[in-house]
């Protein structure tokens, strides 16, 4: 969200700004309800047999990623942020994926157990 007009502001300008915030409030509540519904869906889907546990894990992680995306985009305002923050996150994404990729290296490293 935009920064407010300067602290020593013109009251009319501020009024418009506050009105903008007010419109966001409804959206936050709706996102909260959506997240609660998705939580219910996650629980319900975990009792559905998709044939293999791997399939259940994939479905649950998909729903969790959707929920996490909503939290990040709306609550954490990532849907509209400054470029510098996206840059920080791109670096983070790169390194955290590298971290998960290390599992694969370890997996092929010692074939004794498999």
């Amino acid at each position, binding site marked *: 969200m935009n*920064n407010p007009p300067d602290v020593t502001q013109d009251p009319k300008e501020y009024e418009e700004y506050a009105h903008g915030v007010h419109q966001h409030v409804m959206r936050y509540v709706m996102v909260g309800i959506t997240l609660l519904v998705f939580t219910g869906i996650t629980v319900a889907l975990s009792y559905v047999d998709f044939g293999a546990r791997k399939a259940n894990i994939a479905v649950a992680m998909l729903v969790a990623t959707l929920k996490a995306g909503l939290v990040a985009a709306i609550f954490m305002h990532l849907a509209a942020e400054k470029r*510098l923050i996206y840059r920080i996150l791109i670096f983070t994404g790169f390194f955290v994926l590298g971290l998960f990729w290390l599992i694969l290296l370890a997996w092929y490293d010692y074939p004794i157990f498999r």
Partner: protein
Amino acid sequence: MEIPYTISTRPDTGLWNAKIGIWLFLASEVMLFGGLFSAYIFLRIDSAPGMWPHGLLNVPVGTMNTAILIMSSVTVVLAWASLKMRRYRAYWWYMLVTILCGVIFLTVKLVYEWPQKFEHFGAYIKPEALGKYEKYLGNERRAEKGMEPRIEITGHLHSQNSKEYEVALDPVNAEPDNPVMDRPHFFPLPVTDKIATIEKEDVQRATMFLPTHNAYFASYFTITGLHGMHVLGGVLVFIYMWLPVSKRLYQRNPEHLANRVEVSGLFWHFVDLIWIFVFPLFYLL
């Protein structure tokens, strides 16, 4: 000295400083939890058949805690929006609800969920002795249906002497051939009054459900423990911002307090985001 750029934006970054600060901190948090989650994945895909338990945690309680955390995420963002609209009273109430949600979450974890694990007992049976305990394990039927074998007998430890354990069995071990037991239950079934005697020489390893019990509990306690410490940290910060000392800041410079709430809110949403993954990984799958 006055800290610069608490509310005005720094020309070269286009942001006030605390916002960059919190995002750099969250980036390091992603790496911290990323390491633990990759350890979880590694331990899980590498676990021997029957070694990764399913359906041990209390799903209704976990779901409730998830809902509480989500609601607190909503209230903290509403608290911030209230400050932006200069409604201190509303801010104060939203903040109070957020703090209470965090406290309830932690209380459920520390008073109910964790201690329940500490009282639960499990004994891994040696491979050569599995046949002897078939009536508690039901592995013949499981093998026919192509399911993982059961190698552990769980329940409440009634008594033990130098030779044997006496265990009040969990329903899974009390009726191992009942197809109802093949999948986890939403409402956890209580321990039965059926007692099994397990000879110690048949047991590979037996402990309460502590981090040492198996890789599942090691990762469960590590990840939920670290997450719980984050919740505690968030609650402490929120309490500070809710106390009268912050009202003085509000009267002096409301935008400064709003920005403080925004960055601590970002931290709180991150903690919520981690839980969104922790909940299915440990409770449901």
